[in-house]
């Protein structure tokens, strides 16, 4: 299986995630699209790790997962707080940053 196929697959997943982040107004969906983009990068890293027979890329994937988990915990806490204040998850309300 040529490594280009994995390149194109992860590129397509990344672009789908980017489109979703630009098209949706729900803050949680935007967050999920960012997770999708991170996973596309992870997939490409694993493909290159297999190509070069090197374990370091898989360790990087591991660290990306760690950072994503920390990011999700803080980000969801912020979204929950915003929902408590303005009773909406619309990102257009966030542009004021102060209620």
């Amino acid at each position, binding site marked *: 299986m040529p490594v*280009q196929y994995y390149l194109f*697959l992860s590129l397509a997943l990344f672009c789908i995630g980017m489109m*979703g982040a630009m098209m949706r107004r729900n803050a949680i969906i935007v967050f999920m699209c960012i997770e999708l983009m991170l996973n596309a990068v992870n997939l490409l890293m*694993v493909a290159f*790790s*297999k190509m070069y027979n090197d374990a370091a890329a898989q360790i990087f994937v591991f660290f990306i997962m760690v950072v994503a988990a920390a990011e999700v915990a803080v980000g969801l806490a*912020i979204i929950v707080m915003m929902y408590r204040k303005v009773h909406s998850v619309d990102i257009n309300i966030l542009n004021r940053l102060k209620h």
Partner: protein
Amino acid sequence: MGIYEISFWFLTVMALSCALGVILSRNPVNSVLFLIATFFAISGHYILLNAQFLAIVNIIVYAGAIMVLFLFVIMLMNLNADTEPQKNRLVQIAGAISGGTLLLVILAALRTSTITSLDQTSTDIGLIKNLGKTLFTQFVLPFEISSVLFLSAMIGAVVIGKKEQTV
């Protein structure tokens, strides 16, 4: 076409269609379920690429922990298709066009690149023994720093999520 190719194309179609489902479905709960299916497809790709440890970690951490957190938050907020805010049509079309343009540009730039094909012989670099050795010798400092990151993220989430006192 061997079993390898069949499973590759099956997982590819599953990942792409579920990813489209994430951004196109109106109901946020459906989006979360589609994203979980996408993560399972990506885990299948990891297994095809001989990264068994990462496949399991992907399922446990992403599908098991992160997505359950998303699902809990969505259900706590009682979001559904009726309350879903919609961008106007023009912004949506602009987002789709700009994302598709990025896809086309990078695809055209990489189309003629010649990269060696992946051999299908199984390697053992993705097994837990090998990865653990690399993690605890070559990458032990980032590993320790990530524990500090987790601690600060945990404290941050608790502080942000706390009920506000009189400030």
